[in-house]
């Protein structure tokens, strides 16, 4: 059992009710959101195409005082931070993770600003020194998202920019998004990309390739597809040539897909280099230098030996960063993950890799 320090790279903190955002909105947007206190306020987050029939939360994570899972610091302490040596946790929003799913780009940008201010005030004031945050970015308007990142990226507890929903329906390597990466590089902050950002009806996107699936089970099984698309796109478009100090953390897409994508990518690049001649290295080299991947949900192979073989193939010891995804239904338990990866890797995967990524060594 690993007893060393832990960095948890994906903890979903939430607001007790979306009404708490109201004071953070401008007067105009507050009026827009509430219609003078009417009974049909604007939802912050549009509906998902595939609701989980059992709900997306752990059943035991509902706070007694009300509000959604993730909204109670006391319960988070009791269930996650306390029992283990979580020395640093990265907060990635709850409902707010997907606020860029709003079709109205101006509303999404204002919501992102309000959500970030709320997060800083309520969770990142230093009263729990373990907690660090992300700047949620509404990427419908990439220039605005870059401005937002610059606005709060200097805060000592903001550790990354967070992209989740795909606000303009283009893979994240598209040059339209580059202002965001420019800002992140300038600030020395990694960009975290949270999976499942194509899950909202408002996006008019299929969350997976080849058409909209019918069941949440299909959708959830195939969630890594979106992350593969963003990863390949960022490398192909030369994001890491243009922004050589940019680092990226891929969240919640599991790990078993990595060798298939990287091997095919490197092979195809040899025959198709002429399409992306600005790449100065093999695609997989950009991956290993610039990209880290969160563990959850770590795939469970039919045998531990096969799982280990796969993890070794991808050099997992150096690229994986532990994440719990608390308080979601597919959360990974720290002790359980400890049993599924070799003990010799624990220190790096549970702690060191994330510390290095976020530039926390010596901080």
């Amino acid at each position, binding site marked *: 059992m690993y007893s060393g320090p832990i960095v948890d790279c994906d903890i979903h903190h939430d607001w007790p009710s979306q009404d708490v955002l109201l004071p953070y909105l401008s007067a105009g947007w507050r009026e827009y959101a509430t219609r003078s206190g009417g009974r049909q306020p604007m939802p912050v987050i549009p509906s998902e195409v595939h609701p989980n029939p059992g709900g997306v939360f752990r059943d035991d994570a509902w706070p007694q005082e009300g509000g959604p899972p993730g909204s109670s610091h006391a319960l988070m302490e009791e269930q996650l931070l306390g029992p283990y040596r979580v020395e640093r946790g990265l907060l990635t929003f709850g409902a707010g993770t997907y606020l860029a799913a709003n079709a109205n780009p101006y509303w999404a940008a204002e919501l992102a600003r309000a959500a970030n201010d709320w997060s800083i005030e309520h969770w990142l004031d230093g009263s729990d020194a373990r907690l660090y945050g992300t700047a949620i970015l509404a990427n419908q308007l990439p220039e605005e998202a870059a401005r937002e990142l610059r606005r709060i990226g200097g805060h000592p507890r903001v550790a990354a920019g967070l992209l989740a929903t795909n606000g303009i329906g283009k893979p994240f390597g598209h040059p339209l998004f580059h202002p965001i990466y420019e800002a992140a590089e300038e600030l020395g902050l990694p960009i975290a990309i949270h999976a499942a950002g194509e899950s909202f009806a408002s996006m008019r996107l299929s969350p997976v390739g080849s058409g909209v699936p019918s069941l949440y089970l299909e959708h959830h099984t195939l969630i890594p597809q979106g992350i593969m698309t963003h990863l390949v796109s960022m490398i192909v478009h030369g994001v890491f040539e243009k922004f050589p100090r940019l680092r990226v953390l891929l969240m919640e897409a599991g790990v078993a897909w990595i060798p298939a994508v990287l091997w095919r990518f*490197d092979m195809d690049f040899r025959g198709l280099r002429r399409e992306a*001649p600005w790449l100065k290295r093999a695609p997989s080299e950009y991956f290993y230098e610039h990209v880290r991947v969160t563990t959850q949900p770590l795939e469970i192979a039919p045998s531990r030996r096969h799982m280990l073989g796969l993890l070794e193939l991808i050099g997992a010891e150096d690229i994986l960063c532990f994440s719990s995804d608390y308080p979601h239904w597919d959360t990974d338990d720290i002790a359980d993950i400890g049993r599924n990866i070799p003990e010799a890797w624990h220190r790096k995967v549970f702690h060191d890799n994330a510390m290095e990524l976020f530039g926390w060594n010596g901080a």
Partner: protein
Amino acid sequence: MTVVRAGRVEVGIVRWDGDQLYALRNVCPHAGGPVCRGRLGPRIVASAADPLALDVDDACPTVTCAWHGWEFDARDGRAVAPGSRLRVRTYPVRVEEGTVLVDLGRARA
């Protein structure tokens, strides 16, 4: 680019920039395809800072294999794609009295 046969060995002769001559074995290090039955051209180059400015580097004769399109530098046979260490075998070549001579070394003709 012309392919000639010497016994069992097929060699692609590349002529570039007027009088530069190179000789490559017509066997691709990828999957054994006829690399010299593909295309010969200048190297496409660009910078990530300005992908619109796609350009060619005429100093880099590039052979694109007939099968899967992998690119090799005609001068030394090395794969063009960064990260690949594959290499097409090359042979010394010279011209004597109007005749192109390729030194196959100990290759069995």
